[in-house]
């Protein structure tokens, strides 16, 4: 720890201090009558307007991990890493309509989580529990990954020890985050998101203007990337996609887009908004972040062109490619500007981590604690429970990083994406129709989940070093059903999550048809068709923070 970069560290610490103060002050920002209610602590009073929602959801979806991992992927794999761009191009048009329905029905009935909606739509605590558990399990490793992003920055700043001492700065940052989230709830990340996103925009605009000039122009950058990929023996990399990974590219982009707003933290951001207009405006305004993401991805190529070398992780003894972007900034910019860039990434880890832990805490409180453990919990008791749960979730994530190889969180996040996709029929399709029988949804979820895990388990990593959970790209050749291989000899790759979702839907349809034949009871629906269209100001809306 002798070679700390002091200027960078001071700038980083100053900005970190600013957001910490903001995090605590946020409790009083646009405060309601009480913070002791999930509408207030967990959803910021359900009254955020277009600007706040834009910063909040932008800060929520475009995470620190994205900022370090996407360029790192471009750096090592090339064109395949660019899937983040079509993914974010298609996601907003896809979710435009369903999100409006989700907002309206949740506002009429006071739903706080997607599982609350499923509970109301089907009256089945079991189905709601499955959705809630899926959400919590998929979110936990995602929080841990934010720490991976933060750690990449800390390592570049010079904190590169092993053991608990090496992780101390990370631990301190997370304790601070946990305390102000506990106190201020969703208002804290909403306020901090302003700082995070403004810093990110400034850093990216400067980087994509300055670096290409310094490195000799875009054609220079692309040709040095091309040279690098041609020199490596790996078949999957290159400036363009090859014959085998195009299907994977498209299905991964589609699967990720379908999954994004099924994640509980995305829904939290949407439900915290004031009305349908706010959501509609944001569907048109959020792609501004996609532009930033695309430019950020290209930083991976700039790092190739600039000859950036990733830092060796002294805890594991392996090169940490996630440090590519931080090191690029350290090498190419004055220290004070690198400090700002690091703060942008570091704060970029705090905002989503806070929202994710709040979303997971809401799920726990509403769909496990209140449903099964304390049926007549008051709103104040719910808020208390959620605050405590948010602490547990965060320290669980820290434990992941401290005691388990970070690679495990990356694997889990891969699994999490496939898992959350399995809630699509019960959450997204149920917004439109109740045709699916709840038994069909439960059976589909079970099969999709089990098969998805099985597929991922059997995918080795591209370099052949690891036998299991190596990637989410499945060779069609390896696709088998009880020994039958319909695509034997086919070397096309496909995203495993899409296959699992297809299996889920097929099983759900079959079981639904059978259950309807048998006239099995399909639960009770507390929602009315009109509930899916109401907007702010309507008489039907449930009073916010009502007891």
């Amino acid at each position, binding site marked *: 720890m002798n070679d700390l970069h002091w200027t960078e560290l001071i700038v980083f610490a100053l900005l970190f201090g600013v957001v910490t103060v903001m995090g605590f002050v946020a409790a009083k920002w*646009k405060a309601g009558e009480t913070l002791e209610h999930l509408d207030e602590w967990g959803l910021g009073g359900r009254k*955020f*307007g*277009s*600007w*706040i929602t834009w910063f909040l959801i932008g800060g929520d979806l475009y995470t620190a991990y994205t900022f370090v991992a996407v360029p790192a992927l471009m750096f090592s794999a090339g*064109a395949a890493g*660019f899937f983040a*761009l*079509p993914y*974010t*191009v*298609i996601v*907003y*048009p*896809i979710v*435009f*309509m369903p999100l409006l329905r989700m907002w309206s029905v949740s506002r009429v009935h006071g739903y706080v989580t997607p599982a609350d909606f499923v509970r109301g739509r089907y009256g089945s605590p079991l189905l709601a529990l499955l959705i809630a558990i899926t959400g919590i399990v998929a979110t936990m490793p995602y929080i841990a990954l934010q720490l991976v992003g933060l750690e990449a920055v800390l390592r570049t700043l010079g904190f590169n020890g092993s053991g608990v001492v090496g992780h101390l700065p990370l631990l301190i940052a997370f304790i601070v985050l946990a305390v102000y989230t506990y106190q201020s709830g969703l208002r804290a990340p909403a306020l901090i998101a302003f700082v995070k996103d403004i810093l990110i925009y400034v850093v990216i605009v400067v980087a994509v203007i300055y670096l290409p000039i310094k490195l000799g*122009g*875009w*054609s*220079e*950058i*692309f040709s040095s990337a091309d040279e690098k990929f041609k020199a490596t023996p790996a078949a999957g990399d290159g*400036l*363009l*996609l090859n014959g085998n990974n*195009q299907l994977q*590219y*498209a299905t991964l*982009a*589609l699967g990720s887009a379908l999954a994004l707003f099924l994640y509980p933290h995305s829904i939290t951001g949407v439900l915290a908004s*004031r009305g*349908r*207009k706010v959501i*509609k*405006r944001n*569907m*048109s305004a959020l*792609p501004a972040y*996609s*532009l930033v993401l*695309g430019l950020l991805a*290209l930083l991976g190529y700039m790092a190739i062109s600039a000859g950036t070398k990733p830092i060796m992780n002294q805890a594991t003894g392996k090169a940490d490619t996630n440090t590519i972007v931080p090191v690029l900034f350290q090498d190419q910019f004055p220290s004070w500007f690198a400090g700002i860039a690091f703060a942008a990434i570091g704060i970029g880890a705090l905002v989503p981590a806070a929202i994710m832990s709040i979303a997971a805490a809401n799920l726990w409180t509403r769909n496990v604690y209140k449903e099964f453990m304390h049926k007549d919990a008051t709103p104040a008791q719910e808020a208390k429970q959620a605050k405590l749960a948010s602490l547990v979730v965060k320290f669980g994530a820290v434990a992941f990083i401290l005691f388990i190889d970070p690679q495990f969180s990356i694997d889990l996040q891969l699994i999490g994406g496939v898992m959350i996709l399995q809630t699509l029929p019960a959450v997204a399709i149920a917004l*439109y*129709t*109740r045709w699916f029988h709840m038994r069909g949804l439960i059976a589909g979820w079970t099969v999709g989940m089990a098969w998805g895990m099985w597929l991922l388990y059997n995918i080795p990593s591209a370099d052949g070093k690891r036998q299991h959970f190596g990637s989410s790209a499945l060779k069609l050749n390896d696709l088998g059903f009880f020994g039958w291989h319909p695509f034997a000899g086919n070397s096309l790759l496909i995203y495993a999550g899409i296959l699992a979702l297809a299996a889920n839907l097929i099983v759900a349809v079959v079981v639904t048809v059978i259950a309807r034949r048998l006239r099995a009871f*399909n639960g009770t*629906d507390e929602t*009315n*068709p*009109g*509930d899916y*269209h*109401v*907007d*702010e*100001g*309507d*008489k039907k809306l449930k009073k916010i923070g009502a007891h």
Partner: protein
Amino acid sequence: MALPGKTGSTLRWSPWNLLLAVPLLWLITPLYNRIGPELFGMPFYYWFQFVGIPVGVLCTTLVFLKTADEPTTPAPGAGLDVDDLDEGTGR
């Protein structure tokens, strides 16, 4: 299943909604998986995918403008707050 006596339609359909399917073209990789023509030294593959962003924005914006929600009455006593001023929607 909707009980008899429940009111309101389930779906509101407008042909404008079809615009939301246009960005799905960006999933068809053979459309853009090539080097030329380059723009400012950037291969077609990269800049074409960037073009998807404004196209997506155009589609969602048109749908927003062309499909209106049911008219609502403003909540009584709701005063102007900072967002209303921000957005210019102050009444």
